[in-house]
């Protein structure tokens, strides 16, 4: 035990060092004031954004905020997977954001969390994509301003399809066959995301069904969907589906690094893909399932909401109106200068030149032809129920009917709570 012999000295130095640190640390703590900044006097607003992956978006959002003269606006830029946790924890407190981006959710409306924005949207309502107004409306009131529409579809490497002598697939069955032919020891045929969550809604739509019917009843439990689930199971076990990629479907790296030939992704990633792959890129909608189906594209996106429980709701609404309704050049910049998004307002979409030719134009065409929007009544709990369906019957190999019956119970409970 050599340590024992000199431990006396060591202890003393150790203690002294520890004491020094203990004194220094609180001093350091005093020096840091992490209060919500933002220069100038007058009103202070705080906005929450999830982290967009494309370079420059964060700076852009902060630039817009700085240009606003009636209040100081600070921005919280929150990294992807943790956005919901942080946002919803913060919303319970006094430090809640005044405005935040999210997707239309009926629960947010019913719990009085988001403010009614009808008065600021009404004057320009006709300029918005009607579907974007509908998906944010409940009981005749509009609760959020759509900032961007993000169509999601399949991207494929033209050269790889040519080499494998595969035609662009038009049905799910053809897609599965194509994936098999495109698979080599180093490259998988198809990537639909690690948990297949992203293709849940497209599968339902492509099978000719709906998540919820117009009367807010279960619409997904059809024979076509069951057939689609069976085919997905076949694909899952075929060995031609890329699984456990280090980055998920929203990241273009699977296709741009050559890990797969076809990837489900969003239009936002198009610039990065084009940079990596040049012209060797094509797009197609999620193909139809069965004979009654029709190809579909999921029109996701982000919207701006005002926290109804915030400190100054009127000031927050004024800021949202200024940025997301009045400042058209910022809206266009946000939609087209970084990743590609489709502006929800027809007047801006009409002058967005970057989206008018080449591959972006094809993406816009898919959006217009096959697009489906969010349903405000389809809640997070219902998404989770469908995650279980995919997990149980596609990934574990259970019976699709049984899995859908189980989902019916969960979704039914939710629907009953929401709509009585």
């Amino acid at each position, binding site marked *: *035990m050599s*340590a024992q012999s000199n*431990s006396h000295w060591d*202890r003393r130095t*150790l*203690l002294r060092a*520890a004491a020094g*640190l*203990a004194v220094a*640390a*609180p001093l*350091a*703590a005093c020096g*840091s004031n*992490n*209060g*919500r900044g933002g220069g100038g006097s007058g009103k202070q607003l705080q906005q929450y954004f999830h*982290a*967009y*992956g*494309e370079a420059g978006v*964060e700076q852009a959002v902060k630039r817009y905020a700085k240009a606003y003269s009636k209040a100081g606006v600070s921005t*919280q*830029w929150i*990294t*992807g*997977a*943790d956005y919901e*946790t*942080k946002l919803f*924890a*913060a919303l*319970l*407190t*006094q*430090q809640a954001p005044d405005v935040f981006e999210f997707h239309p959710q009926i629960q947010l409306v019913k719990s009085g969390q988001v403010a009614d924005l009808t008065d600021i949207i009404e004057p320009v309502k006709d300029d918005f994509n009607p579907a974007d107004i509908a998906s944010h409306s409940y009981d005749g009131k509009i609760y959020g301003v759509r900032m961007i529409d993000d169509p999601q579809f399949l991207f494929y490497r033209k050269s790889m399809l040519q080499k494998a002598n595969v035609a662009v697939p038009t049905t799910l069955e053809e897609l599965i066959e194509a994936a098999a032919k495109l698979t080599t020891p*180093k490259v998988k045929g198809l990537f639909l995301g690690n948990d297949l969550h992203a293709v849940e809604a497209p599968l339902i739509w492509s099978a000719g069904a709906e998540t919820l019917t117009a009367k807010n009843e279960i619409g997904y439990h059809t024979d076509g969907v069951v057939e689609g689930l069976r085919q997905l199971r076949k694909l899952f076990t075929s060995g031609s589906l890329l699984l456990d990629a*280090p*980055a998920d479907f*929203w*990241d*273009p*790296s699977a296709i741009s*690094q050559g*890990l797969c030939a076809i990837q489900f992704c969003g239009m936002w*990633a198009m610039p*990065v893909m084009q940079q990596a792959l040049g012209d060797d890129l094509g797009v197609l909608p999620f193909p139809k399932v069965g004979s009654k189906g029709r190809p579909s594209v999921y029109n996701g996106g982000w919207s701006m909401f005002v926290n109804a429980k915030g400190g100054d709701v009127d000031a927050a609404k004024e800021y949202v109106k200024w940025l997301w309704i009045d400042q058209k050049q910022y809206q266009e910049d946000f939609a087209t200068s970084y990743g590609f998004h489709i502006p929800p307002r027809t007047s801006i979409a009409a002058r967005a030149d970057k989206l008018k030719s080449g591959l972006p134009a094809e993406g816009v065409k898919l959006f217009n032809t096959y697009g489906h929007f969010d349903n405000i009544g389809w809640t997070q709990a219902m998404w989770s129920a469908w995650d279980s369906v995919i997990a149980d019957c596609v990934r574990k190999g259970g019976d699709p009917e049984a899995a859908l019956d189980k989902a019916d119970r969960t979704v039914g409970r939710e629907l009953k709570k929401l709509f009585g």
Partner: protein
Amino acid sequence: MTTSVPEAGAKSRRVRRADALGNTGLYLAVSVAAVFFLVPFYLIVRNALSTDAEITGENWKFFPTHLRWGNISELFDDTTVDFARSLWNSMVVAVLMTAGILLICSLAGYGLARIPYQHASKVFYAVLATLMVPTAVTFVPSFVLVSSLGWVDSYRGLVIPGLFSGFTCFLFRQYFLGFPKELEEAARVDGLGYWGAYWRVVVPNSLNFFAAMATITFINGWNSFLWPLVIGQDPSSWTVQVALSSYMTNQTVNYHLIFMATAVSILPLLLVFLFLQRWLVQGIAQTGIKG
């Protein structure tokens, strides 16, 4: 120091050969185990010093052809995440937590172990009961509480709620139960009282154990994730774990940056460890963290 059978005089050659064989086997086993334990460290270093193309290439490269030390400056030059700031925050948080926990929990542990108060065991069981409650359970109420104190985005919010660790208090109590009674009793008789005896006799004779606890607390403070994630709303109050996870969830994955960040986040702890680990062993040996 060794507890193996004492060398009993002259050994026969056969025994010695068996010993040699046994030794070879021992070192072989321990080396194989060591390789497995080192693989993740190898991956960190390899990836941190490679280019993305080398990491994601078709064939495994055991080591990058050129060690790209420039990745370090790329990490610290990156303006989207202020990594240096997050390192500093973690350091402050871990140091404050360590100092605070050692002070508060050791006092309480001593009180519970040594001061004969009639309801002491009831208090002790109340403390013990908190060990059974999973922390994630009380997460949201805790956050609302701390936020209503206005402690979001501050060192106070990061540190203070974590200071009252039932577990550390429990360990201190177990340790003080085994502390030789004669020493402190003599001191108390000397007129020092419980307080004086504690600071003049008990603490100076327990430094090994305090060092052991300090090591463990420091690690936990440095590595905690979920709480700093929610408390650190503003990037200027991010700890290094939060910064690290932000690299992981960014929409475009930069492998070399992620692994360089990992390496940098682990390094300070490795140094602390190498410096403190012998106290850790001794401290634990003295207490016997025992039932």
